[in-house]
Each structure stands twice: as structure tokens, then as C-alpha cells.
């Protein structure tokens, strides 16, 4: 079929107008179209299809479609006879087939293929999830088993260390082995924490607690690390919060300790600052913001991006697996908090942990009529003032001194209404002046129940040399301590000796653990069996004896008789037994034991007995 010139001209013009083409281009296209109609050259159709493919523009495709339809309609109308119309129809059908129908079919095929692709991806996802779960379980189990074995290794190393038989190099090797085990234990614990977090096994345990007390524990946790870096100082700016909060204390501590440990790890000199600010958002809620800043090595922007990813560790010579920050971040999310960081490389970092908590529905602090005496030579910050106001609001009688001489004079001359708490806020060097005074005051009966507190906010917290005298960096609830608990402070000054006789080392170990923790000044001698016990009793004077009843060889009753026969006054002897039957109790009473201590050990009962002995010894 041949196109007439006017038809060609019209087509050229239409193409020019529709597609904003120049004449030459439009002419070329029409020429190709002509070739199709006249010579059955299908190049035009494929070129058109390619153009649509290349442009990938639905508006353009629509324009093409319109052009095709218009051209078809025009030529169809212009056709001189049926034959021409038939030819036109057949070419346009072919055009539609190639340009549109083929495309539709291809799309359908693609749809089928994408179904298969989806199946493959679903299967892969399912297997990936299964594998991840299995891996996590495996890691948890392995870590658990590792931790058990590590505990055992650590335990046996500790036993060898306790025996103190190694010398020189061997002792060093033992120390290194112990340290390495400890490090490995921490790493395994971290891995376990991560797997617990990832598998959603983390339990949130909420309770009421004091924020300042929690922060003291956090600081205590890094005290040893700080000691090893003398050029690094800790600053604190902890807002006074006059109420307890309700939340997961342990996990919040974990977050803060992780950040603090990191800060110490990556800061060799300068300072680390820990601050806490609160804002009461409603009657029952408070928004808390912890900020930990350091003058450490800082992070680059790339490092910042991955700081909370697992296993991100920037300097390989610094210890650790790189899980601490990841754990902290995940924990923060779990607690519905937010942990963020800003950093400047070479200058330091600032970590901010924000969390909303409920205000505890608590009874007020029971410090009515308590006498509190405070010496504060210079630290009159807002926190201090708020504290004093709070103590006074709670009914305490607070006497504040800013003059040392007046303070000392007051303590030396007081006869009645002796303060239950004497708090000194000074520099580290400042405390040394009061050593002799405090030692002296503690020997006076009227100060028997007084607790001496060294509140020192801006220096190294581990004040080893104050440990014997002071509580330090006191949390607010110290003032609410039960009076009977105060006795322990006084009692710990008295050296009493206790002999424990048991054939089972574990029992002796447990006794030793509990007694030495509570009463580090008590001398506790351990005898592994009746004969050994008698031997030790012969050569030393004891204030108390604890005697296991069921022992091979000489049992407890026989040992008791032997001790009586030795002639010297028998101190209180307590039977130590797991068989608390009436017949046994009667027999114990009959023999003349001072009393019975149950196994398993109930620490509070044991402490009461010891305190009674101490009190009697002292008086």
C-alpha cells in the first residue's frame, strides 16, 4: 500500500507537533513507517518498541498509543478500498501485537516468575530464622556451659590462691591465670546478655529504689578501674531527688556501668563526668536524664554510626568483645528509654540516657527527730541545699556547721541529743584532720550509735583509708537506717575471735564467707574436724565456738565434753546442725550448749548471735 504525499506530510506534521521533533527526525520516522506499509519492512515496529523501552515513560507511551490510534483512524478513513483497509488493519494489528500485546504477555510471565522468586525468598527467610534461632540457642547453651566451667576454673584458682603456697613466678602465673579467667567470664556473660536480649528472654524486674544510691553503686563498680588511671578524675553532678522511683534498677545500672566503663577504657587523662537531672512530668511520673561525658579519644563519624552495633571496638588493644555498648543500647530500648551519643574525634564523647519512670508509691523516709550534724566548709551547691531542706522537711533535726573549730567544739562538749549522723564534706586532704577526732569519739559510749559519714563528691571515690571510719558518699536513705543496724558500726570495732569446727570444708567456707563480709574485723579460725578443733582451742582464747554435731571420729557432743575438760572457762558454744529435731534440741540443751545454729545458714540469725557475743565482750 502506498502513502500519498499529503498523507506523508500530515503524518510528519502530526509527529512534529505531538513529540516536539524537528522535521528531519519526523520525516525519518514516517519514511520507516512507509517502508512497513509498502515493503513489509518491520523495522519500524521494532524501532518503535525500542523507543518505548528506552524512554520508560508512561506519558510518552500514552502519546505513542494516541498517535497510533489517530494514524490508524486517519489512514483507515483515507483508504480507497477494502483491500487497503485490510492491509492497514493487518499492519496495525502487528504493531499492537509487538508493542503492546507482547508486553502484556511478558508482564504475565514476569508475574509467574516473581511468584517463584517469592517462594524462594520465603523459604530462605524461614530457614534463616530457624538458623538464627538455633544459633542463638547454641550460643546461649555454649556460653552457659562455658560460664559453668569458667566458674569452676575460677573457683579452683581461688582455692590455690587462698592456700598461698606459690612463690615468685608461679604466684604471678596464678595471678595472670585468674585475671584471664575473670576476663573470659565477663566476655561470656556479655555474650549471654546479648543472646538473652535478642531472643526476648530478658526479664524486666521492677522495684522501688533511690536514684542516688543506684548511682553510688555504679560509681563503686568502676572505682578500681579509676584507681589505675591517676590522671583521670570523676566529676558528678547528681540532682537531689527526694523520692524513690519504680523501675528496673539492675538493668539501668548495667547501662550506666557499661557507659562509665567504656568512658574509663577510652579516656587516659582528664575527666569523666556523670550527671543526673530529673523533670517531673506528672504527679506520678518523672523524666530522668543521665549524661556521661568524657575527655577521651572520641569517635569519628564512621565510628559513631556503628557504636551501638555488636562487636564494634575501635582500638583493638583495648580489652573486650565490643558488646557493651550494643547491650546498653538494646537494654535502653527494652526499658523504653533512649540512648544517644555525640562525639568529637580526639576530644571526647557525651552519652545521654533518657528514661521515664514512675514515682514510687512509698512511705516517706522515717527520720523524724533524728539528729544530724553536718560540716560543710564550702560546697553549698543546690543539691546540698535541697538535701538539707529535704531532711528538715522529713522531721530531722539538722545542725549545719561551716566552721571547723565550732564543729569540733560542738562534738567534744555535747552531753545529750548526740547526733546519730555526723557528716563531713571536705577535700580528701581535709578529712585527715578529723581522723584522730573521729577515732576518739568512737570510743565514747555516747557516740556508740553514731554513724560518721565522709561525703566527698569531687574526688576519687575509692577512699580506702577512710573505710574503717566512714560511710562515704552517702545515699539519702542512710539517714533512715534502723537503729539496731547502727550497732554494727560500733561492734565492728571490737575484735572477737570465733572458732568454727566442722568436718565439711564447704560448711566452714560458707561460715567464713558470711562472717567476714559482715564483720571483717572478727578473727575466724576454722577447724576441719573435732581433733583439730580441740587442738586450736587449747592454744588460743575464743569468744565463741561453733561446733558441728555430726562429725566422724569425735562428734560434736564428744568435742563439747573435751572442751569442758580443758579447764579454762568455756565461751558460748553453739551447736551447728542440719538436724533440727526436738530430740536433738533437747540433747543440745542438756549438754549445755549456748544455743543452736541451723544449717542451711541463716545469716540474720547468725549475726544476731554474734552481735550479742560482741556486745557482751565489749561490756
Amino acid at each position: 500500500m502506498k502513502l500519498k504525499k499529503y498523507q506523508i506530510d500530515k503524518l510528519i506534521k502530526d509527529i512534529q507537533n505531538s513529540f516536539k521533533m524537528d522535521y528531519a527526525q519526523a520525516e525519518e520516522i514516517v519514511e520507516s513507517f512507509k517502508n512497513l506499509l509498502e515493503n513489509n519492512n518491520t523495522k519500524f515496529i521494532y524501532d518503535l518498541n525500542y523507543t518505548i523501552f528506552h524512554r520508560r515513560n508512561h506519558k510518552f507511551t500514552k502519546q505513542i498509543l494516541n498517535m497510533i490510534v489517530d494514524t490508524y483512524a486517519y489512514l483507515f478513513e483515507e483508504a480507497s478500498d477494502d483491500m487497503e483497509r485490510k492491509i492497514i488493519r493487518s499492519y496495525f494489528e502487528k504493531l499492537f501485537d509487538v508493542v503492546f500485546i507482547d508486553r502484556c504477555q511478558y508482564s504475565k510471565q514476569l508475574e509467574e516468575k516473581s511468584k517463584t522468586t517469592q517462594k524462594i525468598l520465603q523459604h530462605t527467610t524461614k530457614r534463616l530464622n530457624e538458623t538464627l534461632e538455633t544459633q542463638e540457642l547454641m550460643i546461649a547453651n555454649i556460653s552457659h556451659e562455658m560460664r559453668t566451667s569458667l566458674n569452676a576454673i575460677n573457683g579452683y584458682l581461688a582455692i590455690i590462691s587462698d592456700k598461698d603456697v606459690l612463690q615468685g613466678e608461679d604466684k604471678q602465673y596464678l595471678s595472670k591465670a585468674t585475671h584471664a579467667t575473670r576476663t573470659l567470664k565477663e566476655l561470656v556473660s556479655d555474650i549471654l546478655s546479648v543472646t538473652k536480649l535478642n531472643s526476648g528472654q530478658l526479664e524486666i524486674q521492677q522495684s522501688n529504689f533511690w536514684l542516688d544510691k543506684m548511682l553510688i553503686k555504679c560509681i563503686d563498680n568502676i572505682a578500681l578501674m579509676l584507681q589505675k588511671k591517676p590522671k583521670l578524675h570523676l566529676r558528678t553532678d547528681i540532682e537531689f531527688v527526694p523520692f524513690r522511683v519504680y523501675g528496673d534498677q539492675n538493668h539501668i545500672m548495667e547501662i550506666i556501668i557499661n557507659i562509665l566503663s567504656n568512658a574509663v577504657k577510652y579516656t587516659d587523662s582528664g575527666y569523666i563526668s556523670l550527671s543526673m537531672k530529673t523533670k517531673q512530668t506528672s504527679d506520678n511520673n518523672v523524666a530522668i536524664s543521665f549524661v556521661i561525658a568524657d575527655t577521651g579519644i572520641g569517635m569519628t563519624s564512621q565510628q559513631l554510626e556503628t557504636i551501638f552495633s555488636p562487636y564494634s571496638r575501635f582500638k583493638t588493644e583495648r580489652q573486650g568483645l565490643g558488646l557493651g555498648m550494643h547491650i546498653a543500647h538494646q537494654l535502653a530500648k527494652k526499658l523504653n528509654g533512649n540512648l544517644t551519643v555525640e562525639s568529637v574525634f580526639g576530644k571526647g564523647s557525651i552519652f545521654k540516657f533518657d528514661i521515664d519512670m514512675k514515682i514510687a508509691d512509698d512511705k516517706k523516709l522515717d527520720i523524724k527527730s533524728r539528729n544530724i550534724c553536718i560540716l560543710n566548709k564550702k560546697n553549698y551547691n543546690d543539691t546540698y541545699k535541697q538535701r538539707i531542706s529535704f531532711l528538715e522537711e522529713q522531721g530531722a533535726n539538722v545542725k549545719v556547721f561551716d566552721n571547723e573549730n565550732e564543729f569540733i567544739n560542738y562534738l567534744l562538749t555535747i552531753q545529750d541529743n548526740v547526733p546519730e549522723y555526723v557528716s563531713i564534706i571536705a577535700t580528701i586532704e581535709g578529712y585527715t584532720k578529723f581522723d584522730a577526732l573521729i577515732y576518739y569519739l568512737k570510743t565514747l559510749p555516747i557516740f556508740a550509735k553514731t554513724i560518721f559519714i565522709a561525703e566527698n563528691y569531687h574526688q576519687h571515690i575509692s577512699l580506702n583509708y577512710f573505710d574503717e571510719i566512714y560511710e562515704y558518699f552517702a545515699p539519702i536513705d542512710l539517714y533512715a537506717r534502723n537503729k539496731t543496724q547502727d550497732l554494727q558500726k560500733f561492734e565492728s570495732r571490737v575484735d572477737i575471735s570465733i572458732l568454727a569446727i566442722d568436718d565439711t570444708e564447704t560448711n566452714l567456707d560458707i561460715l567464713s564467707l558470711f562472717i567476714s563480709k559482715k564483720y571483717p574485723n572478727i578473727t575466724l579460725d576454722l577447724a576441719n574436724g573435732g581433733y583439730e578443733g580441740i587442738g586450736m582451742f587449747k592454744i588460743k582464747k575464743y569468744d565463741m565456738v561453733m561446733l558441728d554435731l555430726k562429725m566422724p571420729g569425735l562428734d560434736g557432743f564428744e568435742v563439747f565434753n573435751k572442751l569442758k575438760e580443758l579447764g579454762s572457762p568455756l565461751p558460748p558454744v553453739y551447736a551447728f546442725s542440719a538436724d533440727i529435731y526436738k530430740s536433738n534440741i533437747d540433747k543440745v540443751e542438756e549438754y549445755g550448749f549456748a544455743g543452736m545454729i541451723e544449717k542451711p545458714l541463716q545469716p540474720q540469725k547468725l549475726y544476731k548471735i554474734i552481735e550479742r557475743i560482741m556486745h557482751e565482750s565489749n561490756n
Partner: protein
Amino acid sequence: MEYRIITCYQFNKIDFEPDLIIGFYQDINQCEFQKHYKKIQDMYPNANVIGCSSESNIYDEVPHVDVDEKHICIYLFLKLNKNGYKIKLLDSNQHIDLQDDGKKYDAIILSSNYSDFLEDNIEYLNKQLGIKHLYGGIAGISNISNDATIFYNGDVYTNTLLLLLLDNDYYKLDGLSIHQFEPVGFELTITKSKDNIIYELDNQPALKVLENIIGHLTHKKIRTFSFPFFLKTDDYKSFEESPLCSIKGINRDTNSISVYRYVKNNDKVKLSIPVSSYEQLKRLRKFHKLRKSNSVAFVFNCLGVKAYLGMMEYLYLMDLKRHLNIPFIGFHSFGEIGPFENGGVSIIHNQTISLAILSAVGEEA
């Protein structure tokens, strides 16, 4: 270098004396090709004629793929320096002998079929003879009752390799192979196999493993070549650099899968999914860097590409033509030879579009 691409109906359009004629013929039209050879022989008695069968041909004119079966026999006529090339024919168990002439070569391989022999020779050419630029295809068939064949100066061969070696002092080849898939999912280990049949994957019946992932398989579904395996042997570090391996068929009696190349126990496979259309184009555009003037190209498209891409195949070829703007000739093969990266090691593939560009040294721009 003078060249012309023609069909069998255009012999009178040649205006130079060719030295080498490369032709591809649809297997069912092998007789036609042989008939035309006689004509060529009469016209150009000194010309070497080489070629192979194809499933269908790829020609230099739109739409490039032979939709109407108009180009059942196609030819590339080349005028080459006689010293610039060699033709070697190898049957099974032969290695090429180049008689250490100190020359460097590039090579086109045409193979009648896939075999250990082909694999060995490719490795031999690569490693022993240092022939880095190696391209080619495995002859195809459209009728399964036919054998794929190699043609050399009037004779037809099966189980044969034909090598066209091009002396680098005169000519060179450049090229690339691309595919449109990426590996996905977990790797599966071939735990029982023989030749090109996989009986077990991860100690489970292979067909069951596959159908567990992609659903029930039919022969129709297999003919779409929609899910080739990535086949990782010890030679490859990752699946991404491993060749594709198309599924040929399944056997429900033995729960086995046959593929288009040999596999062995402990080879690893991964399923594949098609890349996005954006990525398809991106990969296609890698060819554009090969553009040179005064050159011709050979296109070896896997039959799987034709089946998988459908109408997109000719659009991609048109795109290639527009961007490279060099004439090409090619066919739908049952395997291709080429590197994944320009200058990389040539391996045997399935389901690739492979291109080899021939140019004369000093003439290319």
C-alpha cells in the same frame, strides 16, 4: 580488516576477497548451509569456512533475533592477514599444539557440545598456553533429534572443538559475559551425582529439595529457564563469581535433576533469583565500555536467555547495537565461554549474553 555480515541470500553483496568466512546455521537447515558452502567455494576458493549449528541465529538487523526464521544461515565475511590467524580442529582427548612459536593469541572457540574435553581445553588454553582472551559458544539445536555440529571447510563434525586463533600482532579480541541473576538462600551441597545429573542435595533427593523451595516443577516451567543454579566448585571463592548452570530436566523416578554441565560431589549450588530491571540494564551497560570502531562482534546468547527474556532479548540486542554501533553476528547456544569481568578468566557459562569483539591491531579507535 574488511568485513561484511550477510545472509545466504546476499552473497552478491560482497565486494572484497574474503579469507575467512564464519557462519552459523540453524541445525535443521544444515543442508542449506552445506549447499551454500559449495557456492562460496566456487566464488572464493581460497577462503576458509568455519561455523557451527545453532538453535536460532542472531543477526545484525533489527530485531536481531530470528523471529520469522528469515536468517537461517548467516555469515561474517572477513578479509584477514593470512599470517594473522590459525584454525585448529580438535576431537576428544586432544590438546592443542601450538609448537611454541613465541606468539600470543586470542581465541574463539566453537564446540559441538559440552564435555570434559571442552572444560579441559579451556583450562589448558588459559593456564598452559596463556590465552587469556577466550570467547565462544557451544553449538545449539532446535530439534532434539539432531546433533549439534561444527562446520569446517565443507565437513561437519560432532564431538569436536574448533579454535580460531588470532595472532595478537595482527588482531585482538575483547569481550564479556553477563547474566541477569543473583544467588539467594542457603548453599546446598551436591552429595550424589553422576556426570550432569544431580541425585542428592545435602543427602536428600535433589528433586524433592528443589521442589520444597520453588514448588512443583513441570517441564514447561523448566523450559522457561527461570531458576538456574549458581554452581560453585573449588575454583571459585564465592557464588557471585561462579557460573550459572541451567536445569535441563527432571526425573521423578530417580528424584534427580539434570543440568547443562558436569557436576561432582561436594560442589555447592545456590538457587538464583532474577535481578531487577534496573540492575538488568546496569549489567547490560557493561558492554558499552567495549565499544570500538572498525570492529565486528560475536554474540553468543544462551538459549536460556531467549527463553527467559522473551521479547526483552531483542530489545537488549537493539540497545547493544545502538550503543556499540558495530556489526555483530551470533547464535543461541547451549553454553557460552567468556569472562565475567573484562580481562578476567574465561569460563563456561549458561544463561549469559556473551560478547566477543574482534578488531585489527592499530585500526581500532
